[in-house]
C-alpha cells in the first residue's frame, strides 16, 4: 500500500508538469522560407495601419512575392524577397532585421531631392562657431537678429535645462529658425518638450488612433494629443521650422503639430511621413521586424490621416546643389524673418 501511494504521488507530480503540454501552444520555431514569409505577411495583414490609405492590395503583394520562394533558398535570398514585400508599403517605419541585413524603403531617397548639408551651414553661416546644448546646435545669425537652432535627432534628451538656456539666450531675437531637416525622429517625448515652449495656452495639436482588430479599417477612436505650456521661458515671436523628406517620424509629428501654432511656419520640402507608431516583433526564424500600427491626423482635420504620405510645408524651397556655399532654404528663412 505504502509503495503504491508513493508511486502515485510521484506519478501525479509528473502528470501535472505534463498538463502544460496539453493546454499550451507549440512554439513556431522554423527556418522554412514559406512559413516565415507567411508569418510576416499575416502579421502585417492583421496589424499594419495604412493599407487603405496607401491603396496597397496586400493579397496581390503576397501572390507576387510568395512565388519567388523555394525550399532550398539561402537566408540572403529569403531576406531580399521579404524586404521587397515590405518595401511595397513605402514606409520607413517598416523594417526587417536579420544578422545579415536591415531593410529600409528610404522615403527621402525615393521621393524627393536631398535638401540639407550640415557642412554648408557650418562653413558659411556659422563663422563664430556654435553652442551645443543637449541635442541642439545653435547660434545667432544676422547680427543677432535671428536665432538658428539645429535639431538633428529626437534623442529623448530635451530637458528644462537645455531648453531654458536656449529660450533665454535668444529671447531678444526677432525670429527663430528650428532646423529639423533630415531629422529621422526618435523619442516622441521630445515633441512635447520642444513645442511646449511656443504656446502660452494648452492646445490639442494632433489626434492619434490605434489598430484594434485584424481588419484593415479597425481602429480605436481618435485620442487627443495636447501641448501644455512649459513653466519656463516661452518664445512667442515668429518661428520658421525647416523640414524636408528626411524629416520623419517624431519629426513629422512635430511638423504636423505646428499646424496648430499661429507663430510657426513650415518651410522647405514635404516631410517623409512616419506618422504611424511602429510596433516590434520576431519571426519564427529569429529575425525581427517592425511596422506602423497607428494613425495620426491634424487637429483641424480629425479624419484626415493622409499626412502619413508627408506633411506639406507652408513655403516650398529647394536646395540648389550647384552652389555649395549657399543653403537656399536657410537663406529664405532668414530673409522672411528679417523682413517681418
Amino acid at each position, binding site marked *: 500500500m505504502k509503495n503504491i*501511494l508513493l508511486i502515485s504521488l510521484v506519478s501525479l507530480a509528473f502528470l501535472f508538469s505534463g498538463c502544460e503540454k496539453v493546454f499550451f501552444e507549440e512554439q513556431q520555431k522554423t527556418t522554412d522560407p514559406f512559413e516565415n514569409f507567411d508569418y510576416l505577411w499575416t502579421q502585417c495583414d492583421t496589424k499594419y495601419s495604412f493599407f487603405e490609405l496607401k491603396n496597397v492590395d496586400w493579397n496581390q503583394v503576397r501572390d507576387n512575392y510568395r512565388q519567388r520562394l523555394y525550399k532550398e533558398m539561402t537566408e540572403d535570398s529569403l531576406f531580399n524577397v521579404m524586404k521587397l514585400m515590405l518595401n511595397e508599403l513605402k514606409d520607413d517605419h517598416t523594417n526587417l532585421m536579420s544578422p545579415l541585413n536591415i531593410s529600409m524603403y528610404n522615403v527621402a531617397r525615393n521621393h524627393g531631392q536631398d535638401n540639407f548639408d550640415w557642412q554648408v551651414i557650418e562653413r558659411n553661416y556659422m563663422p563664430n562657431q556654435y553652442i551645443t546644448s543637449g541635442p541642439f546646435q545653435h547660434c545667432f545669425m544676422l547680427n543677432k537678429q535671428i536665432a538658428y537652432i539645429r535639431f538633428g535627432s529626437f534623442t529623448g534628451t530635451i530637458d528644462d535645462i537645455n531648453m531654458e538656456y536656449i529660450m533665454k539666450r535668444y529671447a531678444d531675437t526677432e525670429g527663430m529658425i528650428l532646423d529639423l531637416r533630415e531629422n529621422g525622429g526618435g523619442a516622441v517625448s521630445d515633441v512635447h518638450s520642444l513645442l511646449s515652449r511656443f504656446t502660452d495656452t494648452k492646445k490639442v495639436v494632433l489626434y492619434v488612433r490605434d489598430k484594434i482588430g485584424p481588419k484593415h479599417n479597425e481602429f480605436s477612436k481618435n485620442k487627443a494629443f495636447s501641448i501644455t505650456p512649459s513653466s519656463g521661458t516661452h518664445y512667442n515671436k515668429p518661428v520658421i521650422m525647416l523640414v524636408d523628406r528626411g524629416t520623419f517620424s517624431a519629426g513629422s509629428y512635430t511638423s504636423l503639430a505646428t499646424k496648430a501654432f499661429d507663430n510657426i511656419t513650415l518651410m522647405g520640402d514635404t516631410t517623409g511621413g512616419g506618422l504611424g507608431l511602429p510596433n516590434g516583433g520576431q519571426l519564427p526564424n529569429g529575425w525581427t521586424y517592425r511596422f506602423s500600427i497607428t494613425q495620426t491626423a491634424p487637429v483641424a482635420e480629425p479624419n484626415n490621416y493622409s499626412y502619413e504620405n508627408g506633411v506639406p510645408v507652408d513655403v516650398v524651397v529647394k536646395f540648389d546643389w550647384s552652389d555649395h556655399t549657399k543653403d537656399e532654404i536657410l537663406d529664405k528663412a532668414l530673409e522672411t524673418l528679417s523682413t517681418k
Partner: protein
Amino acid sequence: MRKLRTFIVFCILSLVSLFLSKVKAENNSNEKLDYSKTIDFSYAANYVSFTDFATSPLTYSSFVNSLSLAYHKDNIKRTTILGLKFDKGSPSVNYNNTVSTASYMNLDLYYKRLYKVNQSIDKLSLKVGGMVSLGGDLRSNTKLQNAATGIDMNTSLSLSGRATWDISRLSNYTFDWWFIHIKRGPVTRHLVLDCDFGLLGAGFRNGYSYVNQSGLADTDGLFAGYNMMYAPRMKGAFGYQVTFKNHNFVNLSYVWDSIKYKGSYEPYQVASHGIQLTFGFNTNNK
C-alpha cells in the same frame, strides 16, 4: 481605464470572498487545536519558459532565481498559507544565429486555505480548499523595439489540495556493514504533494496593437489598450520534508507553475519547473 478598474474589482472581490470564508470557518470552530505557525523562507532555481505570441512565436527560457516568503499556519484539521514569491532572470532564445534575451520579473501573492478530508489511511492526510492568487510579470526585450515591454497581471481562484504522507522513523535505526556504522534516531518526515487547479482566472495584458501611445495621447497611461482575458493557472509541488523537535522544518521540493492568458488576441503562456529549498521557522513556541 475601465478594464483596469474591472480587473482591480475582480481582484478585490476574490480576496474579500476568501477572507470572509476564513472568518466564517473560525466562528464555526468549536475545537481548540494546537497550531504550528511558521515563517517559511524559500529559494528555488526555476526553469522558466514563456511564449508571448503577440510579439514572437519563439519560446524564451532560462533558469531564474526565485525567493519566497510565507506565513504558514497548520494543524491536523486546517492549513493556512499567505505567501509572496519573486522571480528574476533573463530568459533567452538562441536560434538560427540570432540570440534574443529578455529580462523577466515575476511577483506573486497568494493565500491558501485547506481543510481536512476524512479518509481511512493512517499515514495519509488529505486536505482540500482554495487558493486566491494575484500576480504579474514584467518582461523587457529591446530587440522587440516599441513592443519591448510586456506587463501581464493575473488573479485566479483555484481548487487546492494537499496530500501528506507520513514517512517518519519512529525508532532508532542502525546500519552496520564492514567499516560503515550508521545510527539514526527517530525523525518526523513527510512527503507532501500540493496541487492547485485554476477554476477562475482573469488576466490583464497588452491589447491588440501591443504598444501604447502614452507619449502622444493625453489619455494613454501605462496600461492603455490593455484587455481582460481568461487566464487559467495550474500549480503543483512535490516535496520531502523533515520536521525538527522545535517544529522548524526543512523541505526540498519539485515545484511547477503555469499560466496561459488567452482571449481573442494572441495568447501569452509561461511555465516554470524548479527545485525549491524551504526553511520553516516555528513562531509558536508555547
